[in-house]
């Protein structure tokens, strides 16, 4: 693996990590009442959108070097982070179905680019 490839892998990992946390803050925002708790809502919404935007810019950079049909599926790694974040930070139940589903999605993404 060349240094460039390693850099692209790192780029994709950071991109998915930032994307997953973007989702987390959007989820946090959605739990506030827009009228009653406007500041708390806006803070989380803006931070979520910011992370989502950073992930998008990394996505554009990745698209400069790799084909669309490869970059987009590899973002499936995001949902592995989402499951971890949901479990540890939101205390959501992660059962066999969710683990199986994410494994299917990630496997599908790798089959797609193989």
């Amino acid at each position, binding site marked *: 693996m060349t240094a460039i490839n390693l850099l692209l892998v790192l780029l994709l990992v950071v991109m998915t990590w930032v994307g997953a946390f973007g989702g987390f803050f959007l989820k946090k925002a959605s739990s506030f009442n827009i009228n009653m708790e406007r500041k708390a809502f806006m803070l989380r919404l803006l931070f979520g959108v910011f992370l989502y935007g950073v992930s998008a810019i990394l996505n554009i950079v990745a698209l400069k070097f790799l084909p669309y049909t490869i970059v987009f599926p590899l973002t499936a790694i995001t949902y592995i982070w989402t499951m971890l974040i949901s479990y540890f930070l939101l205390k959501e139940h992660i059962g066999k179905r969710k683990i199986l589903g994410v494994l299917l999605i990630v496997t599908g993404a790798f089959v797609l*680019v193989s």
Partner: protein
Amino acid sequence: MNKPEKTAPIGILLMIFAAISTATGQLLWKLSDAILDVHMLGGFVLYGMGAVLMTAAFRFGKLSVLHPLLSLGYVIAIFYGTLFLDEAITFNISMGTLLILIGVIVIGGDSD
């Protein structure tokens, strides 16, 4: 605070719209070739709309159920790739898409 126990169908529907919006935004970026032009700006608008739709969807269910549904966008991406970018659909692409779809159904059907 609003903490629903089960995922409502409206949450899933909003996530489908978010997936369409996000995938279309990403297609526009690919078409823009990383230059700040109409395509790229349109991409940002659609991508942002995806984030807003997602936030709305998250009101109606759990992050671990709803966020992975965004991977429906991959199926849309394959469709766009063939339609607009002359990318071929191979056996692996068909199989991969099928696995992703099954994964989405397995997670989407899990209301808890």
